[in-house]
Protein backbone atom coordinates (compact mmCIF):
# COMPACT_ATOMS: atom_id res chain seq x y z
CA UNK A 1 0.00 0.00 0.00
CA UNK A 2 2.66 2.48 1.05
CA UNK A 3 4.85 1.44 -1.86
CA UNK A 4 2.10 2.07 -4.28
CA UNK A 5 1.62 5.47 -2.74
CA UNK A 6 5.31 6.29 -3.05
CA UNK A 7 5.31 5.03 -6.61
CA UNK A 8 2.34 7.17 -7.43
CA UNK A 9 3.84 10.23 -5.77
CA UNK A 10 7.22 9.67 -7.44
CA UNK A 11 5.59 9.56 -10.85
CA UNK A 12 3.58 12.67 -10.19
CA UNK A 13 6.33 14.73 -8.59
CA UNK A 14 8.27 15.67 -11.73
CA UNK A 15 5.04 16.05 -13.60
CA UNK A 16 3.82 18.43 -10.95
CA UNK A 17 6.99 20.50 -11.29
CA UNK A 18 6.48 20.97 -15.01
CA UNK A 19 2.73 21.14 -14.94
CA UNK A 20 2.91 24.35 -12.93
CA UNK A 21 2.04 27.22 -15.17
CA UNK A 22 4.85 29.27 -13.72
CA UNK A 23 7.78 28.53 -15.96
CA UNK A 24 9.92 31.37 -14.56
CA UNK A 25 11.84 28.98 -12.32
CA UNK A 26 13.61 27.56 -15.34
CA UNK A 27 15.52 30.81 -15.84
CA UNK A 28 16.53 31.73 -12.31
CA UNK A 29 20.17 31.99 -13.42
CA UNK A 30 19.54 34.28 -16.39
CA UNK A 31 19.86 37.52 -14.42
CA UNK A 32 23.54 37.12 -13.56
CA UNK A 33 24.88 38.77 -16.64
CA UNK A 34 27.90 40.97 -17.01
CA UNK A 35 27.00 44.21 -18.74
CA UNK A 36 28.92 47.46 -19.07
CA UNK A 37 27.89 50.21 -16.67
CA UNK A 38 26.63 53.14 -18.73
CA UNK A 39 26.27 56.82 -17.88
CA UNK A 40 28.64 56.94 -14.91
CA UNK A 41 28.67 60.59 -15.87
CA UNK A 42 26.21 62.16 -18.25
CA UNK A 43 28.75 64.07 -20.25
CA UNK A 44 32.41 63.83 -21.24
CA UNK A 45 33.18 66.58 -18.67
CA UNK A 46 32.32 66.74 -14.98
CA UNK A 47 32.61 70.55 -14.78
CA UNK A 48 36.16 71.63 -15.56
CA UNK A 49 37.62 68.15 -15.44
CA UNK A 50 37.15 65.18 -17.70
CA UNK A 51 34.77 62.36 -16.90
CA UNK A 52 35.42 58.76 -17.91
CA UNK A 53 32.81 59.01 -20.67
CA UNK A 54 33.75 58.94 -24.34
CA UNK A 55 31.51 59.54 -27.33
CA UNK A 56 29.87 56.75 -29.29
CA UNK A 57 31.24 55.83 -32.69
CA UNK A 58 30.51 58.52 -35.31
CA UNK A 59 29.05 60.88 -32.74
CA UNK A 60 29.91 64.54 -32.85
CA UNK A 61 29.77 66.58 -29.68
CA UNK A 62 29.56 70.34 -30.08
CA UNK A 63 30.61 71.95 -26.82
CA UNK A 64 30.52 75.49 -25.56
CA UNK A 65 32.03 76.42 -22.20
CA UNK A 66 31.67 79.86 -20.75
CA UNK A 67 32.99 81.37 -17.52
CA UNK A 68 31.88 84.83 -16.46
CA UNK A 69 33.77 87.32 -14.29
CA UNK A 70 34.00 87.47 -10.48
CA UNK A 71 30.57 87.48 -8.85
CA UNK A 72 31.75 89.45 -5.85
CA UNK A 73 34.95 91.05 -4.58
CA UNK A 74 36.62 94.08 -6.13
CA UNK A 75 35.78 93.04 -9.71
CA UNK A 76 32.25 91.82 -9.03
CA UNK A 77 29.07 93.07 -7.53
CA UNK A 78 26.41 95.23 -9.06
CA UNK A 79 28.77 97.31 -11.23
CA UNK A 80 29.63 94.27 -13.39
CA UNK A 81 26.18 92.73 -12.95
CA UNK A 82 27.78 90.09 -10.70
CA UNK A 83 30.41 89.20 -13.24
CA UNK A 84 28.09 88.80 -16.17
CA UNK A 85 29.53 91.81 -17.97
CA UNK A 86 32.85 90.01 -18.12
CA UNK A 87 33.92 86.68 -19.46
CA UNK A 88 37.10 85.11 -18.21
CA UNK A 89 37.11 82.21 -20.66
CA UNK A 90 35.08 80.91 -23.56
CA UNK A 91 35.70 77.55 -25.18
CA UNK A 92 34.14 76.27 -28.39
CA UNK A 93 35.01 72.73 -29.40
CA UNK A 94 34.08 69.84 -31.62
CA UNK A 95 34.74 66.37 -30.38
CA UNK A 96 34.21 63.22 -32.38
CA UNK A 97 33.92 59.51 -31.61
CA UNK A 98 36.28 57.61 -33.90
CA UNK A 99 35.13 54.46 -32.14
CA UNK A 100 33.14 53.86 -28.97
CA UNK A 101 36.44 53.92 -27.10
CA UNK A 102 38.35 56.66 -28.88
CA UNK A 103 37.39 60.33 -28.97
CA UNK A 104 39.37 63.07 -30.68
CA UNK A 105 38.65 66.76 -30.57
CA UNK A 106 39.69 70.26 -31.48
CA UNK A 107 38.85 73.37 -29.54
CA UNK A 108 39.46 77.06 -29.34
CA UNK A 109 39.58 78.76 -25.98
CA UNK A 110 40.01 82.40 -25.20
CA UNK A 111 42.35 81.35 -22.42
CA UNK A 112 42.64 82.76 -18.95
CA UNK A 113 46.04 82.66 -17.37
CA UNK A 114 49.49 83.30 -18.71
CA UNK A 115 48.52 82.57 -22.31
CA UNK A 116 45.46 83.31 -24.41
CA UNK A 117 44.10 82.51 -27.90
CA UNK A 118 44.45 78.79 -27.31
CA UNK A 119 43.99 76.04 -29.87
CA UNK A 120 43.58 72.61 -28.39
CA UNK A 121 43.87 69.12 -29.84
CA UNK A 122 42.68 66.31 -27.59
CA UNK A 123 42.56 62.54 -27.49
CA UNK A 124 40.55 60.46 -25.08
CA UNK A 125 40.71 56.69 -24.88
CA UNK A 126 38.49 54.41 -22.84
CA UNK A 127 40.66 51.63 -21.51
CA UNK A 128 38.22 49.85 -19.19
CA UNK A 129 34.50 50.04 -18.59
CA UNK A 130 32.97 49.07 -15.26
CA UNK A 131 30.66 46.06 -15.42
CA UNK A 132 27.40 45.44 -13.59
CA UNK A 133 28.71 42.25 -11.98
CA UNK A 134 31.87 44.00 -10.70
CA UNK A 135 34.09 41.72 -12.72
CA UNK A 136 35.62 45.08 -13.73
CA UNK A 137 34.98 47.32 -10.71
CA UNK A 138 36.52 50.48 -12.14
CA UNK A 139 36.28 52.48 -15.34
CA UNK A 140 39.59 53.81 -16.64
CA UNK A 141 39.86 56.45 -19.35
CA UNK A 142 43.04 58.17 -20.53
CA UNK A 143 43.05 61.78 -21.65
CA UNK A 144 45.71 63.88 -23.32
CA UNK A 145 45.79 67.26 -24.97
CA UNK A 146 48.21 69.61 -26.63
CA UNK A 147 47.53 73.34 -26.60
CA UNK A 148 49.15 76.06 -28.64
CA UNK A 149 48.76 79.77 -28.03
CA UNK A 150 48.29 82.05 -31.01
CA UNK A 151 48.75 85.25 -29.04
CA UNK A 152 51.40 87.80 -29.83
CA UNK A 153 54.63 87.37 -27.90
CA UNK A 154 55.24 89.65 -24.94
CA UNK A 155 58.00 92.28 -25.22
CA UNK A 156 59.92 91.50 -22.02
CA UNK A 157 61.82 88.23 -21.94
CA UNK A 158 60.94 87.44 -18.31
CA UNK A 159 57.24 87.14 -19.15
CA UNK A 160 55.70 83.67 -19.43
CA UNK A 161 54.09 84.99 -22.61
CA UNK A 162 57.42 85.73 -24.26
CA UNK A 163 57.91 83.30 -27.11
CA UNK A 164 61.54 82.96 -28.15
CA UNK A 165 60.66 79.94 -30.25
CA UNK A 166 57.45 78.27 -31.39
CA UNK A 167 57.57 75.50 -28.77
CA UNK A 168 57.24 78.16 -26.05
CA UNK A 169 53.61 78.43 -27.09
CA UNK A 170 52.86 74.80 -26.26
CA UNK A 171 51.49 73.08 -23.18
CA UNK A 172 50.27 69.53 -22.56
CA UNK A 173 48.09 67.50 -20.23
CA UNK A 174 48.20 63.77 -19.52
CA UNK A 175 45.49 62.41 -17.31
CA UNK A 176 43.90 59.16 -16.17
CA UNK A 177 40.25 59.16 -15.13
CA UNK A 178 39.45 56.40 -12.65
CA UNK A 179 35.71 56.32 -12.18
CA UNK A 180 33.14 54.17 -10.49
CA UNK A 181 29.39 54.26 -10.19
CA UNK A 182 28.18 53.35 -6.69
CA UNK A 183 24.57 52.29 -6.84
CA UNK A 184 22.78 54.26 -9.47
CA UNK A 185 22.67 57.73 -8.01
CA UNK A 186 26.31 58.37 -7.16
CA UNK A 187 29.45 58.35 -9.29
CA UNK A 188 32.98 59.22 -8.23
CA UNK A 189 36.10 59.92 -10.28
CA UNK A 190 39.74 60.30 -9.27
CA UNK A 191 41.99 62.04 -11.79
CA UNK A 192 45.77 61.77 -11.46
CA UNK A 193 47.08 64.44 -13.80
CA UNK A 194 50.34 65.77 -15.19
CA UNK A 195 50.47 69.20 -16.82
CA UNK A 196 53.50 70.39 -18.73
CA UNK A 197 53.92 73.99 -19.87
CA UNK A 198 56.94 74.67 -22.05
CA UNK A 199 57.16 78.31 -21.07
CA UNK A 200 56.50 79.56 -17.52
CA UNK A 201 57.41 82.61 -15.44
CA UNK A 202 60.33 82.79 -13.03
CA UNK A 203 60.17 80.15 -10.23
CA UNK A 204 57.06 78.63 -11.77
CA UNK A 205 57.07 74.92 -12.65
CA UNK A 206 57.15 73.56 -16.18
CA UNK A 207 55.92 70.13 -15.15
CA UNK A 208 53.37 69.73 -12.40
CA UNK A 209 51.48 66.78 -10.96
CA UNK A 210 47.95 67.24 -9.72
CA UNK A 211 45.17 65.12 -8.33
CA UNK A 212 41.54 65.75 -9.13
CA UNK A 213 38.37 64.31 -7.67
CA UNK A 214 34.93 64.62 -9.16
CA UNK A 215 31.49 63.40 -8.32
CA UNK A 216 27.94 63.27 -9.60
CA UNK A 217 24.83 62.84 -7.53
CA UNK A 218 21.56 62.25 -9.34
CA UNK A 219 18.39 63.81 -8.00
CA UNK A 220 16.15 62.68 -10.83
CA UNK A 221 16.68 61.01 -14.19
CA UNK A 222 17.57 64.33 -15.72
CA UNK A 223 18.96 66.43 -12.91
CA UNK A 224 22.20 65.95 -11.00
CA UNK A 225 24.66 67.76 -8.79
CA UNK A 226 28.23 67.72 -10.10
CA UNK A 227 31.41 68.71 -8.27
CA UNK A 228 35.07 68.65 -9.18
CA UNK A 229 38.18 69.68 -7.28
CA UNK A 230 41.83 69.76 -8.33
CA UNK A 231 44.87 69.87 -6.07
CA UNK A 232 48.05 70.82 -7.94
CA UNK A 233 51.31 69.77 -6.29
CA UNK A 234 53.17 73.04 -6.53
CA UNK A 235 56.46 73.20 -4.66
CA UNK A 236 56.93 75.51 -1.70
CA UNK A 237 59.66 77.65 -3.32
CA UNK A 238 57.31 78.44 -6.17
CA UNK A 239 54.45 79.33 -3.80
CA UNK A 240 56.78 81.49 -1.70
CA UNK A 241 58.06 83.38 -4.73
CA UNK A 242 54.52 83.99 -5.98
CA UNK A 243 53.66 85.48 -2.58
CA UNK A 244 56.50 88.00 -2.89
CA UNK A 245 54.81 89.08 -6.13
CA UNK A 246 51.51 89.47 -4.28
CA UNK A 247 49.99 86.41 -5.89
CA UNK A 248 48.64 83.21 -4.42
CA UNK A 249 47.70 79.92 -6.06
CA UNK A 250 44.48 78.14 -5.17
CA UNK A 251 42.91 74.77 -5.84
CA UNK A 252 40.17 74.75 -8.41
CA UNK A 253 36.70 73.92 -7.13
CA UNK A 254 33.62 73.67 -9.32
CA UNK A 255 30.05 73.00 -8.20
CA UNK A 256 27.30 72.69 -10.74
CA UNK A 257 23.86 71.54 -11.66
CA UNK A 258 23.57 69.20 -14.63
CA UNK A 259 20.39 69.17 -16.68
CA UNK A 260 19.89 66.58 -19.40
CA UNK A 261 17.21 67.17 -21.99
CA UNK A 262 17.82 64.33 -24.44
CA UNK A 263 20.74 65.18 -26.71
CA UNK A 264 21.65 68.31 -24.79
CA UNK A 265 23.53 68.25 -21.54
CA UNK A 266 23.52 71.61 -19.84
CA UNK A 267 25.66 72.57 -16.84
CA UNK A 268 25.18 75.63 -14.75
CA UNK A 269 28.17 75.90 -12.50
CA UNK A 270 30.15 77.99 -10.09
CA UNK A 271 33.94 77.82 -10.05
CA UNK A 272 36.79 79.84 -8.62
CA UNK A 273 39.02 79.03 -11.59
CA UNK A 274 38.82 81.38 -14.52
CA UNK A 275 40.01 79.00 -17.25
CA UNK A 276 38.37 76.04 -18.96
CA UNK A 277 41.44 74.05 -20.02
CA UNK A 278 43.39 71.66 -17.75
CA UNK A 279 46.60 73.33 -18.92
CA UNK A 280 45.48 76.53 -17.19
CA UNK A 281 42.91 75.90 -14.47
CA UNK A 282 45.13 73.33 -12.74
CA UNK A 283 48.42 75.26 -12.49
CA UNK A 284 47.22 78.85 -12.89
CA UNK A 285 44.19 79.33 -10.65
CA UNK A 286 44.90 82.46 -8.63
CA UNK A 287 41.37 83.38 -7.60
CA UNK A 288 39.57 82.12 -4.55
CA UNK A 289 36.02 81.54 -3.40
CA UNK A 290 36.71 83.34 -0.12
CA UNK A 291 37.39 86.67 -1.84
CA UNK A 292 34.23 86.42 -3.89
CA UNK A 293 36.37 85.48 -6.86
CA UNK A 294 34.05 82.82 -8.08
CA UNK A 295 31.96 82.99 -11.15
CA UNK A 296 29.04 81.33 -12.70
CA UNK A 297 29.40 79.66 -16.00
CA UNK A 298 27.88 77.06 -18.20
CA UNK A 299 28.82 74.11 -20.36
CA UNK A 300 26.57 73.12 -23.20
CA UNK A 301 26.99 69.82 -24.97
CA UNK A 302 24.97 68.89 -28.04
CA UNK A 303 25.57 65.46 -29.49
CA UNK A 304 24.85 64.58 -33.11
CA UNK A 305 24.90 61.15 -34.67
CA UNK A 306 26.76 61.44 -37.97
CA UNK A 307 26.36 57.87 -39.19
CA UNK A 308 24.16 58.03 -42.28
CA UNK A 309 23.36 54.35 -42.03
CA UNK A 310 21.37 55.07 -38.91
CA UNK A 311 18.89 57.27 -40.73
CA UNK A 312 15.82 55.61 -42.12
Amino acid sequence: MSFVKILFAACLLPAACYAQDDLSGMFKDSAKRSLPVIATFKSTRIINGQSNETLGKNELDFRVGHRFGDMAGSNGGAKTFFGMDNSTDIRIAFEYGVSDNLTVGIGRSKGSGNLSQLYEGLVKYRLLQQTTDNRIPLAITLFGNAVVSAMESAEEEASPAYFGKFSDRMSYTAQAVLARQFGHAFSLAVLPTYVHRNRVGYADMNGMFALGVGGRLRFTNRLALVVDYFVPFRDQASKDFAKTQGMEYYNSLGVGLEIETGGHVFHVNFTNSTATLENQFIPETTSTWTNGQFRWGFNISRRFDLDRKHKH
Partner: protein
Amino acid sequence: MKHLILLMLCLPLALGATAQDVYASRNVSLSFFSKAPMEDIDAKTTQCVSAINIKTGAVYFKVAVNTFQFKKSLMQEHFNENYLETHKFPNAEFKGKLLDLPDLTKPGTYTVTVEGTLDMHGVKKTYREKGTLTVAVGSIAVSSTFKVRVADHNIKIPRLVVKNIAEVVDVTVSGKYAPAK
Protein backbone atom coordinates in the same frame (compact mmCIF):
# COMPACT_ATOMS: atom_id res chain seq x y z
CA MET B 1 12.09 -5.34 -4.50
CA LYS B 2 9.58 -5.65 -7.25
CA HIS B 3 8.18 -2.29 -6.23
CA LEU B 4 11.59 -0.69 -6.21
CA ILE B 5 12.33 -1.83 -9.76
CA LEU B 6 8.97 -0.53 -10.81
CA LEU B 7 9.76 2.76 -9.13
CA MET B 8 13.14 2.98 -10.85
CA LEU B 9 11.53 2.30 -14.19
CA CYS B 10 8.71 4.64 -13.62
CA LEU B 11 10.77 7.68 -12.54
CA PRO B 12 12.68 8.35 -15.74
CA LEU B 13 9.56 7.54 -17.69
CA ALA B 14 7.60 10.15 -15.82
CA LEU B 15 10.44 12.68 -16.16
CA GLY B 16 10.91 11.98 -19.84
CA ALA B 17 7.29 12.27 -20.70
CA THR B 18 6.74 15.52 -18.89
CA ALA B 19 10.00 17.18 -19.90
CA GLN B 20 8.93 16.93 -23.51
CA ASP B 21 5.92 19.04 -22.70
CA VAL B 22 8.12 22.06 -22.11
CA TYR B 23 9.93 23.74 -24.95
CA ALA B 24 12.41 26.48 -24.14
CA SER B 25 14.83 28.91 -25.74
CA ARG B 26 17.52 31.19 -24.33
CA ASN B 27 18.00 33.29 -27.43
CA VAL B 28 14.60 34.51 -28.47
CA SER B 29 14.82 37.66 -30.61
CA LEU B 30 12.90 40.63 -29.43
CA SER B 31 12.82 43.86 -31.35
CA PHE B 32 10.80 47.02 -31.26
CA PHE B 33 10.20 49.77 -33.70
CA SER B 34 8.89 53.23 -33.08
CA LYS B 35 7.94 55.49 -35.96
CA ALA B 36 7.79 59.16 -35.09
CA PRO B 37 7.89 62.39 -37.09
CA MET B 38 11.48 63.22 -36.15
CA GLU B 39 13.18 59.85 -36.20
CA ASP B 40 12.56 56.13 -36.24
CA ILE B 41 13.86 54.14 -33.35
CA ASP B 42 14.56 50.46 -33.51
CA ALA B 43 16.32 48.15 -31.11
CA LYS B 44 16.90 44.46 -30.81
CA THR B 45 18.00 41.83 -28.36
CA THR B 46 18.53 38.11 -28.83
CA GLN B 47 18.89 37.41 -25.14
CA CYS B 48 15.27 36.88 -24.23
CA VAL B 49 14.58 33.60 -22.42
CA SER B 50 11.28 31.83 -22.92
CA ALA B 51 9.43 28.58 -22.34
CA ILE B 52 6.15 27.06 -23.49
CA ASN B 53 4.34 24.12 -21.99
CA ILE B 54 2.54 22.53 -24.93
CA LYS B 55 0.27 20.48 -22.67
CA THR B 56 -0.94 23.25 -20.36
CA GLY B 57 -0.39 26.13 -22.78
CA ALA B 58 1.63 28.11 -20.26
CA VAL B 59 3.91 30.70 -21.84
CA TYR B 60 6.78 32.60 -20.28
CA PHE B 61 9.14 35.31 -21.54
CA LYS B 62 11.81 37.23 -19.70
CA VAL B 63 14.33 39.76 -20.97
CA ALA B 64 16.98 41.91 -19.33
CA VAL B 65 15.91 45.29 -20.69
CA ASN B 66 19.48 46.64 -20.88
CA THR B 67 20.43 43.99 -23.44
CA PHE B 68 18.53 45.89 -26.15
CA GLN B 69 21.00 47.17 -28.73
CA PHE B 70 20.31 50.46 -30.47
CA LYS B 71 22.14 51.81 -33.47
CA LYS B 72 22.70 55.12 -31.73
CA SER B 73 24.54 54.80 -28.45
CA LEU B 74 22.97 57.94 -27.03
CA MET B 75 19.50 56.53 -27.69
CA GLN B 76 20.46 53.37 -25.86
CA GLU B 77 21.66 55.43 -22.93
CA HIS B 78 18.44 57.45 -22.81
CA PHE B 79 16.33 54.31 -23.16
CA ASN B 80 17.99 52.70 -20.12
CA GLU B 81 18.51 55.82 -18.04
CA ASN B 82 15.43 57.92 -18.65
CA TYR B 83 12.63 55.85 -20.12
CA LEU B 84 12.82 52.21 -19.00
CA GLU B 85 14.90 53.01 -15.87
CA THR B 86 16.63 49.65 -16.07
CA HIS B 87 18.47 50.22 -12.79
CA LYS B 88 15.09 50.08 -11.05
CA PHE B 89 13.33 47.64 -13.37
CA PRO B 90 16.01 45.40 -14.88
CA ASN B 91 13.70 42.81 -16.46
CA ALA B 92 10.56 42.72 -18.52
CA GLU B 93 8.50 39.59 -18.00
CA PHE B 94 5.47 38.06 -19.64
CA LYS B 95 3.45 35.25 -18.08
CA GLY B 96 0.55 33.94 -20.06
CA LYS B 97 -1.44 31.09 -21.45
CA LEU B 98 -2.40 29.91 -24.91
CA LEU B 99 -6.15 30.07 -25.37
CA ASP B 100 -7.89 27.31 -27.41
CA LEU B 101 -4.75 25.18 -27.16
CA PRO B 102 -4.21 23.12 -30.33
CA ASP B 103 -2.48 19.74 -30.25
CA LEU B 104 1.09 20.95 -30.43
CA THR B 105 2.54 17.46 -30.54
CA LYS B 106 1.57 17.27 -34.19
CA PRO B 107 3.77 19.07 -36.74
CA GLY B 108 2.11 21.99 -38.44
CA THR B 109 1.60 25.73 -38.29
CA TYR B 110 -0.89 27.05 -35.77
CA THR B 111 -2.22 30.51 -35.18
CA VAL B 112 -2.73 30.89 -31.48
CA THR B 113 -4.00 33.51 -29.12
CA VAL B 114 -2.04 34.16 -25.99
CA GLU B 115 -3.36 36.01 -23.00
CA GLY B 116 -1.21 37.11 -20.13
CA THR B 117 0.44 39.83 -18.15
CA LEU B 118 3.37 41.90 -19.30
CA ASP B 119 5.35 43.30 -16.38
CA MET B 120 7.50 46.11 -17.73
CA HIS B 121 8.84 49.27 -16.11
CA GLY B 122 7.14 48.20 -12.89
CA VAL B 123 3.67 48.22 -14.45
CA LYS B 124 1.66 45.06 -15.13
CA LYS B 125 -0.79 45.05 -17.97
CA THR B 126 -2.89 42.30 -19.52
CA TYR B 127 -2.43 41.61 -23.21
CA ARG B 128 -4.29 39.31 -25.60
CA GLU B 129 -2.29 38.88 -28.80
CA LYS B 130 -2.04 36.55 -31.77
CA GLY B 131 1.04 34.53 -32.57
CA THR B 132 2.19 31.74 -34.84
CA LEU B 133 3.61 28.43 -33.70
CA THR B 134 5.33 26.20 -36.24
CA VAL B 135 5.75 22.73 -34.81
CA ALA B 136 8.39 20.46 -36.33
CA VAL B 137 10.02 17.31 -35.01
CA GLY B 138 12.04 18.37 -31.96
CA SER B 139 11.44 22.10 -32.29
CA ILE B 140 8.80 24.80 -32.22
CA ALA B 141 9.24 28.17 -33.94
CA VAL B 142 7.38 31.04 -32.34
CA SER B 143 6.61 34.43 -33.79
CA SER B 144 4.34 37.29 -32.89
CA THR B 145 3.96 41.00 -33.46
CA PHE B 146 2.00 43.24 -31.17
CA LYS B 147 1.72 46.83 -30.07
CA VAL B 148 2.67 48.33 -26.74
CA ARG B 149 1.44 51.76 -25.74
CA VAL B 150 4.33 53.30 -23.79
CA ALA B 151 2.00 55.31 -21.57
CA ASP B 152 0.37 52.05 -20.40
CA HIS B 153 3.63 51.15 -18.71
CA ASN B 154 4.15 54.55 -17.16
CA ILE B 155 6.98 55.42 -19.54
CA LYS B 156 6.91 59.17 -19.66
CA ILE B 157 7.96 61.06 -22.73
CA PRO B 158 8.76 64.70 -22.02
CA ARG B 159 6.94 67.16 -24.25
CA LEU B 160 10.31 68.31 -25.60
CA VAL B 161 11.00 64.99 -27.34
CA VAL B 162 7.43 63.97 -28.05
CA LYS B 163 8.10 64.24 -31.77
CA ASN B 164 11.00 61.79 -31.47
CA ILE B 165 9.22 58.88 -29.84
CA ALA B 166 6.02 57.21 -30.94
CA GLU B 167 3.27 56.61 -28.39
CA VAL B 168 2.72 53.10 -29.66
CA VAL B 169 5.65 50.79 -30.28
CA ASP B 170 5.59 47.69 -32.49
CA VAL B 171 7.17 44.70 -30.79
CA THR B 172 8.26 41.61 -32.70
CA VAL B 173 9.09 38.29 -31.07
CA SER B 174 10.68 35.34 -32.83
CA GLY B 175 12.49 32.28 -31.58
CA LYS B 176 13.13 28.61 -32.04
CA TYR B 177 12.42 26.41 -29.06
CA ALA B 178 13.78 22.98 -28.25
CA PRO B 179 12.52 20.47 -25.67
CA ALA B 180 13.67 21.57 -22.22
CA LYS B 181 16.23 19.33 -20.58
